[in-house]
């Protein structure tokens, strides 16, 4: 069931109604039922995978906590007879036990994810290697189902188990409540990756109907539909033509594709997240924000702090930090300082960990070299900008440009262009073609080719371009307004008639200008495949 399908609208409408008329105690069990029903309606086989992850993570969480409790009790009971050294040895032994448990949980769940997502990618690479060595043998691909949102709910569950292991919070004792945390249906399509201590505050709470909260939720859903149906699904037609016919559309058209894809991805992904957050919000549940106006970032590092935030913080907290501050890494850093000098030695933990993070980020996005190269390109650009930092500071001081509006604007545009260029690796069918097309864009731009009628042969007519342009202007204006105060808050402060009118206008524009027709189920979200 797609977010943008008629059946989804019927599904959430009925759910909202039931959610507020049943006794409050039944609200979270209703959500669990709805989430499993949602998943069942998508494909009943998905339920097997999500149940395995939920049950195993739940049990390992309880088991890890038991070790913690036993440790605390033992130390309390034997406080007098244990020396500092004894305590240390005992604690180390218990830590090993907890580590074995978490390792089993991680291997099981990441293993499931890896087998499902990367078996055919591995086979493809093995075939490639065998072919390179002159062998005619090939291994056949395996037909595996990929449960919707498996990357998201696996990462969310693994974040939970790591937090329980670290003692950040106690594990959830109610297996059904935990199952809801893993399967909460608005998040299943494309995240965000929530943290248990954040989401659980409102997920299991009892919620009275509040007109403001409900209106905000519905407005957010409509805003998501607007982005997805009016902008993303309209522009995708041209994107498909441009990327599938690289021989025909080189030069300036590569730039057009680059910008179209940037707009599409933004409208598609943020639109989907708006629907997710809006559905939860309409029921009084707070889901973590995943974006903070990323296209206004002044550098790539800032961009990654504002785009897909929950994924970025997940990788930072659970991969980047553990690798960069583990004892072997610190030893390596020490050795590097000794043999390679202070300057290089200092950088070893940061560089190595960042490399691993970006490699896995790429791999997480998709089982193909396109995504791996995309991840590594991000790594390279971030590291270069990190190294050039002193130079930037000198430049800013010398020319006194810091804080100047025109210079801020320049930095924003530069970041958008850079990120859009790197994102081209998601677009074309393979890595060599991407390099070729980007090179072609730089060396054979020919802007005059855009003035021909070819722009109207991309599946979009004048009316489509006008709607797209207007849609993007609205998107930009809303982003600018959000800087000081949320637009919905501003509207709420105005007379109710005006608030209703604007909401109605948004609905009408989706109905009139959305890229669909009768019986049409809109395109799947891009991030759904991850």
């Amino acid at each position: 069931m797609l977010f943008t399908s008629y059946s989804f609208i019927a599904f959430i409408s009925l759910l909202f109604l039931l959610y507020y008329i049943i006794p409050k105690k039944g609200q979270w069990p209703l959500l669990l039922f709805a989430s499993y029903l949602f998943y069942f309606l998508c494909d009943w086989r998905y339920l097997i995978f999500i149940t395995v992850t939920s049950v195993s993570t739940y049990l390992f969480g309880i088991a890890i906590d038991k070790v913690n409790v036993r440790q605390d009790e033992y130390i309390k009971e034997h406080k007098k007879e244990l020396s500092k050294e004894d305590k240390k040895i005992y604690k180390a032994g218990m830590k090993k036990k907890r580590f074995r448990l978490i390792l089993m949980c991680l291997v099981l769940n990441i293993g499931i994810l890896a087998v499902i997502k990367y078996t055919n990618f591995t086979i493809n690479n093995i075939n490639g290697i065998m072919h390179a060595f002159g062998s005619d043998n090939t291994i056949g691909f395996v037909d595996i189902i990929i449960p919707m949102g498996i990357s998201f709910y696996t990462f969310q569950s693994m974040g939970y188990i790591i937090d329980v292991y670290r003692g950040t919070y106690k594990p959830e004792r109610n297996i059904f409540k935990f199952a809801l945390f893993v399967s909460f249906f608005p998040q299943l399509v494309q995240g965000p990756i929530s943290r248990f201590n954040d989401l659980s505050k409102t997920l299991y709470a009892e919620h009275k109907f509040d007109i403001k909260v409900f209106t905000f939720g519905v407005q957010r859903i409509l805003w998501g539909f607007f982005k997805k149906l009016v902008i993303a699904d309209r522009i995708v037609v041209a994107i498909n033509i441009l990327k599938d016919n690289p021989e025909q559309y080189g030069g300036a058209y590569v730039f057009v594709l680059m910008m179209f894809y940037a707009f599409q991805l933004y409208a598609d992904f943020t639109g989907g997240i708006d629907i997710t957050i809006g559905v939860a919000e309409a029921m009084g549940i707070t889901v973590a924000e995943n974006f903070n106006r990323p296209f206004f970032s002044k550098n790539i590092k800032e961009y990654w702090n504002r785009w897909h935030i929950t994924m970025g913080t997940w990788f930072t907290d659970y991969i980047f930090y553990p690798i960069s501050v583990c004892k072997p890494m610190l030893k390596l850093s020490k050795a590097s300082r000794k043999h390679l000098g202070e300057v290089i030695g200092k950088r070893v933990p940061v560089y190595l960990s960042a490399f691993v993070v970006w490699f896995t980020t790429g791999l997480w996005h998709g089982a193909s070299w396109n995504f791996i190269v995309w991840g590594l390109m991000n790594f390279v650009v971030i590291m270069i900008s990190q190294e050039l930092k002193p130079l930037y500071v000198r430049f800013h001081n010398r020319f006194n440009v810091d804080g100047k509006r025109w210079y801020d604007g320049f930095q924003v545009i530069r970041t958008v262009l850079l990120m859009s260029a790197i994102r081209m690796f998601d677009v074309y069918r393979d890595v060599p073609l991407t390099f070729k097309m980007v090179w072609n864009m730089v060396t054979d731009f020919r802007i005059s080719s855009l003035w021909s009628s070819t722009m109207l042969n991309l599946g979009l007519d004048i009316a489509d371009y006008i709607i797209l342009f207007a849609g993007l202007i609205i998107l930009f204006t809303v982003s600018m307004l959000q800087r000081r105060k949320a637009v919905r808050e501003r509207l709420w402060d105005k007379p109710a008639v005006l608030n209703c009118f604007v909401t109605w206008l948004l609905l009408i524009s989706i109905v009139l200008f959305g890229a669909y027709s009768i019986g049409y189920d809109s395109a799947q979200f891009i991030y759904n495949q991850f």
Partner: protein
Amino acid sequence: MEELLEILRDLHPEVDYDTCDTLIDDKILDSFDIVSIISEISEQYDVTIPAEDIIPENFNSAQALYELIERLSDED
């Protein structure tokens, strides 16, 4: 404490570490800075700050960070 301040000043000389208690909240220190600080602390104090202790409360001020180092050296 002076050694710690030196490590911090080396990264961001413009910050007043005596008064600033929002190093993380105000995004003055980023993840790269944090890893550099931990690596330096490991060198200077022979203390390893584990990943679970990398939370804003421990890194928001020089004082909080110093207290963390003391606690960890005590545990060692």
